[in-house]
């Protein structure tokens, strides 16, 4: 029964990891920007969910509707006004810029919210469901389902919509896309906006599960990074595969060789992937 419980835990956690990583993967895949502000966007999303619940009793699943457009606008403006100016510079420049922006946002959050940990506690609590002896917390199930839905939406958007096709085209061949009349700057801004919206939504969902503090942002960012390397950039399913693999390795590792070595194991796996399969499980050029 322990095995089943550990596997279920890993499955649910894997979807949460995917949710954390998907926006990061999109921005990295399309813009070739390693967006270090991603973790802070997630935390900001958590604060939004927390604030809406504390003040207006709006549960996090409705807060998604507010978070998505707000974060899209934030990301869009950030890319339009700042990042687009350096987008064609080497990757180190954009990395440094997002690093600086992250410092600003993170310290602003410490200033306004303090470094204290907050917790979004639903009242009444929604508890856990159990099947035989396997227990799954309902909040994690909701977050998982929402994460899968968001991933599906993104997939459809990239596949079916004109904007989505333009995003993929820009990623595949920027110059050809320009010749075809695609406004690259605005596509970049839209892609970054989508990445930010996904981060904000992930934050809203994570508020149900993790304590909220500006200090968590680097943990989220670290997970997103590992998931992207494992799963591979350039595909929605890559983030999902990477998330599941990471959660599985961590879960099985904790249960067999102890929790302190589980992290070692997951980073060892990361190194193996970087050496043997740098494109990740499902990575390929372009974002589809």
């Amino acid at each position: 029964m322990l095995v089943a419980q550990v596997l279920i835990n890993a499955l649910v956690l894997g979807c949460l990891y995917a949710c954390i990583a998907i926006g990061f993967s999109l921005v990295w895949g399309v813009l070739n920007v390693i967006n270090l502000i991603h973790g802070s966007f997630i935390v900001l999303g958590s604060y939004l969910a927390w604030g809406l619940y504390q003040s207006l009793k709006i549960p996090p699943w409705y807060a998604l509707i507010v978070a998505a457009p707000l974060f899209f606008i934030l990301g869009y403006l950030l890319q339009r006004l700042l990042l687009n100016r350096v987008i064609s510079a080497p990757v180190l420049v954009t990395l440094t810029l997002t690093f600086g922006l992250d410092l600003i946002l993170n310290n602003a959050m410490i200033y306004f919210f303090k470094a204290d940990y907050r917790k979004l506690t639903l009242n009444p609590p929604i508890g856990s469901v159990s099947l035989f002896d396997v227990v799954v917390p309902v909040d994690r199930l909701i977050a998982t389902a929402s994460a899968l839905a968001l991933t599906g939406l993104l997939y459809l958007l990239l596949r079916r919509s004109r904007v989505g096709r333009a995003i993929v085209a820009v990623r595949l061949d920027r110059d050809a896309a320009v010749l075809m009349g695609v406004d690259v700057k605005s596509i970049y801004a839209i892609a970054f906006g989508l990445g930010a919206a996904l981060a904000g939504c992930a934050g809203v969902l994570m508020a149900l599960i993790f304590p909220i503090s500006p200090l968590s942002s680097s943990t989220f960012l670290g997970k997103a990074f590992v998931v992207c390397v494992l799963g591979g950039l350039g595909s929605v399913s890559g983030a999902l595969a990477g998330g599941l693999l990471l959660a599985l390795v961590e879960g099985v590792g904790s249960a067999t060789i102890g929790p302190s070595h589980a992290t070692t194991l997951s980073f060892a796996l990361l190194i193996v992937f970087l050496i043997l399969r740098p494109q990740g499980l499902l990575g390929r050029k372009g974002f589809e």
Partner: protein
Amino acid sequence: MFDPKLARVSQVAAMAIAALAGWGALSSPAAADDVIRFGAPLPLTGPLAPEGIKQQQGYDIWAEQANKAGGISVGGKKYKVEIVYADYQSNTPRAVQTTEQMITQDNVNFLFGPFGSGAAKAASTVSEKYRVPTIAATASSSQVYDQGYKYLFGTFTPNDTLTTPLTQIIKSKAPDVKKVAILARNDLFPLAIAQEMEKSAKANGFEVVYFEKYAIGTLDHSATLSQIKSLAPQWIFVTGYTNDLLLIRKQMVDQQMKAPVVTMIAGPAYQDFIEPAGASAENLTSASWWHPAEEYAGKDIFGSTSHFVKLFRDKYKIDPDYGHASAALCGALFQIAIERAGSLDRDKVRDELAKLDIVSFFGPVKFGPNGQINSLDPPVFQIQGAKPVVLFPQAIKQGELKLGVN
């Protein structure tokens, strides 16, 4: 001949020299007469920021009180207190650098140790080298004091003074509790106290069915907790800091884990654990070095414990916990030692600290030969009705142990 170019150059040079001289005067210690400077390297940002900020509040309230009373009197002359803060960003190597910088560049007279056992131990090598008396407010692990250092003092008793009374209470009040599971954050203090717990548990006849460490920054504990649940321990003992413990407690509820006794160190001593944990904090047991319910008639600047608690509430609108109190105590002890030494001489002050044997608002203070305090009876408490209720020591006991954490 008058050369305008030369004139301009000399004008600029003169300005530069004047500016340099002015800057030198500002930063030279001569301008800082009648002030005693205390260096406080703290983790004001990064993962340990909540704890670092507590320590800062403790130092600040002492400095405020000391200055309100005119300052510290040294041989009949009053000196104002100035605390020099530096943020080492929760990064221990940087705490060591910062400490050295405070001694060599900021010219501090005395030092407070950085947060926790690990950083305090690392930084103590520097303060020892420069022979600067240092009081560590939040370092309890004996490894910090076993280095044979002369200038390091600490206001937390060794870790076993927390686990031994706790184990004895559980043993006498809950005879059905036999199996203990211990989960520790892999960090100096949380691991050291977990190891002490293992020793205390074994010495008192408990069976330790699980002992594991989790890495710093672990985001999910579900696999570990599932495993603990499958072992059905009656006592679950978890160590870590606020974030870890909130997350673990939440995941325990998620996995419907129940046990007669659940102990968490150090979260439940903090209001910022109790509030977010809500109902899930009920009946958690813990131990700490100080509790606002204590009542000592101190000879320090704060006087009685209740007076300290009142001053703290007035200033910060929250109840002080042991981190706040210990930091304030460190300042108060320096003040006593300096006044008794009647001098700012570091060796004289160090000797006065070593000789101290007084009652403070924090409890009786006397340092052992290794510099660690050995005069305190740390309280054991339990969260009941969202409030910490003291179970031990007998003199300040507020309630009885309740079993059952759901």
